[in-house]
């Protein structure tokens, strides 16, 4: 597939060609797919078939241990969650739960609290993406330049990525402290008024977003620099020779070629952004009020603060349903990424 794409995108008017290139390669894949596999099956000697069968049989055995883990610890709990969502179970309450039908869904999922949590989650997600991607793209392009000390800068930007969210979250909490925190002190130096970062609704939302994005930026820069490094340089050079400006080269050559990587990164961030929990738990526990109560935080609070297992299960089932379509998105994005 790469061999098909490379000469096409080497042509001068890069913008139109690269999009045409991806279309043609997509076409060729879908038409060539069944033919190739038929040809392989029909033309292969019987011994190969026998080996393939044996491989398939041992593959079933080799994946068995994974199923032994997934069935009781992933699928069983999900099933139990669905079951509990129709009952009225209270955490640690030994009484036999009674069937309540859709009551839990009516009281919790259709409540404004859940809607608000969904909005808060999407808001943090959207704000974060708006911060991470333009900034990440710019940094990746800067780090792509030939320069001394590039490795040092890249390393520095990469370091926050895998740090324990709980630990860094608490240190940010220290820095956000309105009286003693270093952030407000700096604002004071700049002549700006201090902000009650975690005590007021909007600042708290930004504070949570900022900590999450601080770590996520590392991932975005990492993915995009790796993507940039894997691009062939000839199309960019050809466009430059043809007199395209730096912005034109980026907009019409680099950006389209980088699109699969961008989409993969975007999907990872959407998944992890929707799951956001640790940082919220540590910084605000969803507060002040419900200003930063994301869906995960809400579900946790209902389950382990209000001890309403069944109501939390109903929320969980809805989150489960929201997660399911991600599978289709995932497949699309990953085939796109593999094709390029």
């Amino acid at each position: 597939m790469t061999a098909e794409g490379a000469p096409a995108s080497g042509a001068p008017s890069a913008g139109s060609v690269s999009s045409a290139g991806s279309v043609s390669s997509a076409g060729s894949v879908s038409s060539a797919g069944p033919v190739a596999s038929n040809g392989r099956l029909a033309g292969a000697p019987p011994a190969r078939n026998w080996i393939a069968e044996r491989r398939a049989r041992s593959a079933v055995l080799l994946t068995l241990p994974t199923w032994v883990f997934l069935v009781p610890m992933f699928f069983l709990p999900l099933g139990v969650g669905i079951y509990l969502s129709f009952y009225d179970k209270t955490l640690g309450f030994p009484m036999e739960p009674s069937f309540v039908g859709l009551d839990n869904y009516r009281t919790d999922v259709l409540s404004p609290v859940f809607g608000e949590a969904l909005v808060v989650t999407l808001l943090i997600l959207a704000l974060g993406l708006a911060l991470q991607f333009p900034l990440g793209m710019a940094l990746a392009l800067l780090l792509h330049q030939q320069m001394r000390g590039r490795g040092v800068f890249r390393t520095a930007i990469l370091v926050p990525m895998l740090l324990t969210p709980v630990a860094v979250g608490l240190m940010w909490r220290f820095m956000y402290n309105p009286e003693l925190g270093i952030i407000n002190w700096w604002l004071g130096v700049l002549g700006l008024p201090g902000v009650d970062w975690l005590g007021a609704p909007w600042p708290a939302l930004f504070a949570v977003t900022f900590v999450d994005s601080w770590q996520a930026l590392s991932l975005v820069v990492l993915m995009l620099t790796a993507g940039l490094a894997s691009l062939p340089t000839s199309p960019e050079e050809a466009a430059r020779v043809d007199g395209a400006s730096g912005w034109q080269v980026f907009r019409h050559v680099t950006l389209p070629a980088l699109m699969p990587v961008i989409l993969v990164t975007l999907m990872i961030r959407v998944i992890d952004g929707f799951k956001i929990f640790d940082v919220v738990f540590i910084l605000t526990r969803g507060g002040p009020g419900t200003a930063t109560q994301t869906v995960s935080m809400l579900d946790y609070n209902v389950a382990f603060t209000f001890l309403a297992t069944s109501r939390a299960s109903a929320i969980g089932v809805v989150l489960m349903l929201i997660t399911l379509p991600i599978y289709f998105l995932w497949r699309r994005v990953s085939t796109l990424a593999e094709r390029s």
Partner: protein
Amino acid sequence: MARRAGGRSPLGSIGLYAVLTVTSAVMLFPIFWTVSTSIKDRVDTFRLPPVIVGFTPTWKNYSQLFEDPTFIRVMANTIIVTAGSTIVALLIGSLAAYALARAPRFRGRRPLEVSLILLRAMPGVVLVVPLYDVLAGVGLLGKMPMLIVLYAMVNLPFAIWIMTPYFQGIPMELEEAAVIDGASGAQVFRTVVFPLALPGVVATGLFVGLLAWNEFLLPVVLGSEATKTLPVFISGFVSARTLDWGPLAAASSLAIVPIALLTVVMQGRLVRGLSQGAVKG
């Protein structure tokens, strides 16, 4: 207005370095602040203007932590659950990764792929709420072995996705030669395939180990006082009436400094592992 390849005006160079220096400083400052707070005396911790450098370092916060038997237990728990779950995830995951790398189609391949993606994408609470109920019912709540297998399970998608390409990279001919020499399937895996994939397995182990080290939701909900891990211990500082920043910074430093160092040293491998493990359907 053609730009010479690699050519940059001096002003552009200064701008480039300025932007990258400021960004790097912002990215690293919280780490620096954590470590410096951990070696400050209580008086210096709250001094305004903040003391960036030039304070007298003290190990008091660390010695206070390590004099506490609870904390020793916490560190031991964290190491045990991290190491244990990583080994389990690698053992189980390498078998599945090998199958996915070698057999293009087999019974249950698609369901397995779907399950791994859903496990990766599902918010943890969705799983943890009913799990609490299930584990309480069978008396496995707050048990270390249970936590180890649960940690391993949630990290299986990453483990499998990162290892699969390594297995794909091993030439099929080597295996076939071993089979002709009379080796059984298990022998081929143990003596030919696994040793060749070992660098990949080790890299995967580091990555999965980091995730286990950071794991918070599982131990905080399904653990107990006896299984308390470092992230749970650190989160406990919040509920304390007065936040004791010195020891907290020391505990946080113990959590993040090893990861920061590992990230710097293992950069190349992490980059490769992450981009492979990021999306594999």
